[in-house]
């Protein structure tokens, strides 16, 4: 019993690392741009494919595959605001955006998925692990690749939160999330911060895709189920609150992992959505509210 508990707990922590990489970026983007990025999962897939291209096609080391995924998705993310969101914003002028941004990112999601399908085909692609080996903890064993996912998530998210807390550009990101008009009066260039935030958010998903590629196969729609789950996580943590999304990622992942001890595993995926529905009905602002600023 104790062995199973520890094993599921460790699985939950690793899964939490992946969820956090994904959901924190999604939440940051929503907090700063007020845009729900439905295409977030496709950046996860792009990260996986970039790792595949680097490691399998170009025979580069796994670390370079992850780096390539980070840089590639960051650069792709940099283009999204100026090429898609800003023109729509200009066209709308002062009119309310309504669901248009949601539809726009849904279109981007379909565009990216179709592009991946056209370029790479629909086959499942396998990427060798960046690290091999297994850590024997006595009660259970964990692959080094899973530990790498957890360690990388911890390192990257610590760096992100330190950036938001201490770096002038990070302070600017928080300022824009809190009060865009006042941020402009400080001399902060909003379009630049919007583009940077989007790029950072989707790069986290891209790194997640590269790190998870050896654990799951890569295919064009691999990120979409994660997007849906990340919505549940961000609602639980408080929309637009990256720290809340971080905590909620681990709450959901550990709850999912431990749940298989008491309910059939086919019900596991429903937990996050059941929590999301309850949260929307009982406490719509989530556990921690919206607080990119803190």
């Amino acid at each position, binding site marked *: 019993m104790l062995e199973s508990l520890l094993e599921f707990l460790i699985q939950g922590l690793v899964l939490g690392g992946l969820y956090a990489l994904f959901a924190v970026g999604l939440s940051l983007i929503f907090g700063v741009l007020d845009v729900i990025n439905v295409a977030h999962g496709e950046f996860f897939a792009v990260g996986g494919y970039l790792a595949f291209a680097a490691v399998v096609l170009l025979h580069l080391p796994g670390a370079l595959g992850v780096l390539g995924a980070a840089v590639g998705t960051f650069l792709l993310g940099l283009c999204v605001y100026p090429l898609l969101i800003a023109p729509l914003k200009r066209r709308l002028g002062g009119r309310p955006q309504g669901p248009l941004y949601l539809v726009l990112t849904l279109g981007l999601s379909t565009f990216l998925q179709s592009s991946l399908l056209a370029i790479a085909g629909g086959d499942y692609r396998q990427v060798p692990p960046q690290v091999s080996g297994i850590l024997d903890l006595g009660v259970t064993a964990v692959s080094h690749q899973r530990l790498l996912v957890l360690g990388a998530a911890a390192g990257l998210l610590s760096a992100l939160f330190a950036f938001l807390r201490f770096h002038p550009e990070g*302070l600017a990101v928080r300022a824009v999330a*809190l009060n865009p008009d006042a941020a*402009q009066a400080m001399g902060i260039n909003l379009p630049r911060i919007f583009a940077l935030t989007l790029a950072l958010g989707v790069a986290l998903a891209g790194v997640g895709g590269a790190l998870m590629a050896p654990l799951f196969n890569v295919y064009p729609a691999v990120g979409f189920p994660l997007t849906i789950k990340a919505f549940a996580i961000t609602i639980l943590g408080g929309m637009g609150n990256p720290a809340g999304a971080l905590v909620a990622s681990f709450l959901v992942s550990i709850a999912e992992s431990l749940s298989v001890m008491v309910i059939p595993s086919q019900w596991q995926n429903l937990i996050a959505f059941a929590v999301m529905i309850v949260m929307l009905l009982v406490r719509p602002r989530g556990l921690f509210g919206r607080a990119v600023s803190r």
Partner: protein
Amino acid sequence: MLELEAVRSGYGKLEILQSASLRVPDGAIIGIIGPNGAGKSTLLKTAFGYLTPWAGRIALDGREIAGRRPDEIMRCGVGYLAQAGGLFAEMTVHDNLVLGGYTVSRGDKRRAVDSVYARFPLFHDRRRQLAGALSGGEQRLLAIARALIVHPRLLLLDEPSAALAPRFIDEVYATLVALNQDGLAMLIVEQNVEAILAVAHRVFVLDLGRNAFDGTPAELRGSDRIRRLYLGEDDEDAAAGSRP
């Protein structure tokens, strides 16, 4: 310094400013008063780039700035204080000041923040507190202090006395006068007519988005029509006000 000429502006299709003109000379305090809905805040937002003018000319030091973004106008030496101060209430006092120096180098920023702490020791003592935890008057002073980090030449202030207790209004205005004596020009939108008339070198009255009066505070006090229409005074009040 700042000139607005026949500026029209508004929100969506709603025209608020119909034809407003004014001039802020170097080192002057210019007040804008008028009834609610006259377009006072709209004028300030248009001058600072939050709203794009529909027509007219806005020039800073003779150079057209209409259509520029607020951050670009700020980099030309213009500061803006929103009605509620525009602080980042959920960030610390120190982070608010650091953000005030976003456009300057790290060394200049540190020196400027230190000079704010020297001028307002209260903020040094409370630098780790959330700005939203300060009193209304302290928040207004912090917003002014933050705007000074980059040494602007002109400050645009939207109702600096709004929702403040009288003693804080006096403190805020004393600070503004002291800054003006150091050469800082100001364009102040104000509902508190007495407060602005006491410090302004020139006053503009806006009504329905148009200039209704332009003159010194003394000239405004001497105009029965303006007093009746915009200051809510009748002749007896004015006579009583002039008695010793």
